[in-house]
């Protein structure tokens, strides 16, 4: 065993001495692998960055929610939105598995705040809004049951509006000629952009003639989401609302789809990386074979001095692995630098993944082993005396 490790150390010493004496030649020979390692690292890091950004934006909608919106183009005289009857039916489907929040959402609703006028998304809803949406109040209080029961003119505005116009709790906002007092300021979470939340009055909430255009359903256990989602779809199908009239947003399903898409993308990336490594590896093999012609005398000498065929084979393989390891190191440093530059630029989402460096390094070393094998076998079959006679 001692001899084995001593041999490995000696072979490594020879390998490094060869690299040192032919550093330029070595650099050229490993350039393919260096470029491949950079490509793999950058590809995986950008892919991971994109994936995480996308998944985060999906998760921001709330993984336990099902959102249903009726398409405005399908609103008719007969079907103006979701009725109280629909809501009661969905409540029955949900049973104890979740809660439903009906909403009346209006896009780009004009409002006045102090001397300013602007537009925001308006959500009119019950006190369940904050529970279902899991929004966080930065200041003030949420919509309360009291506001709903007493038709209080209270409003909650998004942080973006509060910051832009320097307004705070106690200020007033005017919407549709009604004045509402700001009682809370909310973070934005998945609700992108400016928004205002108003309580619906109790009379409106339970009116048979009132229609909502949004439903938000919070399911307590994520494992029930897809099952409930299909039951709700079935219900709307049965009552004759065409599939294209409804927009469903089910983050859990989107994540699943996204993860499946990522698996396919990862496979494509893996194949690209593999091809890249193959071409780098073939380059290494080619150069090792051409070096073999020059090293024949050296190999013959080593065999005469007592090196076995196995030792020659191992030495050549080790040299290939050292070459590709050096390439992996150089490629990793360069790849890290490129990622840093890209992340400073900020336009590309980057995730500095250890996985990327490990995969690239492993592939580089593996290609060294794979493509060093044939030159190593050839070297070990050299007859010492004929090798020495050749020169």
């Amino acid at each position, binding site marked *: 065993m001692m001899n084995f490790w001593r*041999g490995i150390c000696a072979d490594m010493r020879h390998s490094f001495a060869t690299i040192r004496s032919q550093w330029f030649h070595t650099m050229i020979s490993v350039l393919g692998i260096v470029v491949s390692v950079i490509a793999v690292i950058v590809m995986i890091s950008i892919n991971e960055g994109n994936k995480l950004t996308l998944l985060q934006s999906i998760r921001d909608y709330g993984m336990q929610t099902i959102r249903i919106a009726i398409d405005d183009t399908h609103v008719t005289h007969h079907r103006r939105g979701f009725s109280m009857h629909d809501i009661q039916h969905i409540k029955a489907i949900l049973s104890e598995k979740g809660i439903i929040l009906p909403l009346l959402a209006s896009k780009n609703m004009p409002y006045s705040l102090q001397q300013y006028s602007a537009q925001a998304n308006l959500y009119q809803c019950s006190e369940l809004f904050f529970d279902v949406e899991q929004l966080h109040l930065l200041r003030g209080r949420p919509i309360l049951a009291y506001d709903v029961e007493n038709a209080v003119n209270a409003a909650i505005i998004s942080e973006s509006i509060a910051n832009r116009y320097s307004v705070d709790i106690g200020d007033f906002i005017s919407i549709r000629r009604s004045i509402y007092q700001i009682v809370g300021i909310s973070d934005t979470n998945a609700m992108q952009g400016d928004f205002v939340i108003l309580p619906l009055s109790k009379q409106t909430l339970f009116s048979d003639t009132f229609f909502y255009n949004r439903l938000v359903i919070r399911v307590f256990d994520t494992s029930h989401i897809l099952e409930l989602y299909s039951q709700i779809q079935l219900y709307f199908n049965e009552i004759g609302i065409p599939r294209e009239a409804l927009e469903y947003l089910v983050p859990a399903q989107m994540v699943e789809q996204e993860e499946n898409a990522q698996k396919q993308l990862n496979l494509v990336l893996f194949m690209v990386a593999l091809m890249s490594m193959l071409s780098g590896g073939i380059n290494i093999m080619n150069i090792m074979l051409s070096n073999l012609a020059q090293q024949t005398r050296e190999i013959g000498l080593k065999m005469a001095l007592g090196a076995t065929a196995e030792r020659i084979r191992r030495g050549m393989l080790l040299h290939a692995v050292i070459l590709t390891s050096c390439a992996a190191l150089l490629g990793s440093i360069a790849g890290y630098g490129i990622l840093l530059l890209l992340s400073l630029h900020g336009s590309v989402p980057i995730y500095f993944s250890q996985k990327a460096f490990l995969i690239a390094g492993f592939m580089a070393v593996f290609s060294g082993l794979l493509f060093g094998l044939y030159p190593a076998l050839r070297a070990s079959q050299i007859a010492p005396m004929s090798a020495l006679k050749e020169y």
Partner: protein
Amino acid sequence: MTLTAQGLCKSYENMLILDHVDIEVVPGSFHGIIGPSGCGKTTLLSLLATLERPESGTLHIDNIDMLKLDQYSLANFRNAHFGFVFQSSYLLLHLDVIQNIALPYDYGVVEKREIIFARVQHLLASLGLAGYDNKRTALLSGGEQQRVAIARALVRNPNIIFADEPTGNLDADNTRVILEYLKKLCHDEGKSVVMVTHDSDAASYCNSIKVLSKL
């Protein structure tokens, strides 16, 4: 260590090179193998040094039947008991002098670094190369390179040294230095030298000569 070869035959591409050659190398002998070009001098040397296998015949070193040993055992035997000097020095140019001389230790049993270093220093001094330890071999003259090659051949303290025209590329002065050193090794240290040469002056240093003729 006595080397005895009997009835060695070798052919290349159906052309007989050696036909039933016998040779005995006893300790302390300086053996010369001479003959015209193409008569199989180097082939005989490589058979005796176990670098090639004969088609027939026997090869014993003391009581060991060398032809029955596997490649691994032969490699170890060569490392422990044989030294090689070739017409060209065959030094590894990416290694310095001391690394070249210590090269056989990379393929043999583990030895302490201090022992290796002391042995290399002793050989460098005895070959007139003291202070050359870390010199790049590419910067040495032909004579110096050949002396480094001799040091490499002797570093494991071998019993038999195989030399294939060791002075073929050297001038008269360096030839004399090398041959006298080899002769001294036989006389003083009881080592055996088997030298291939076509130079009659070099052959005059030998105390036993095997003449080969072209078949």
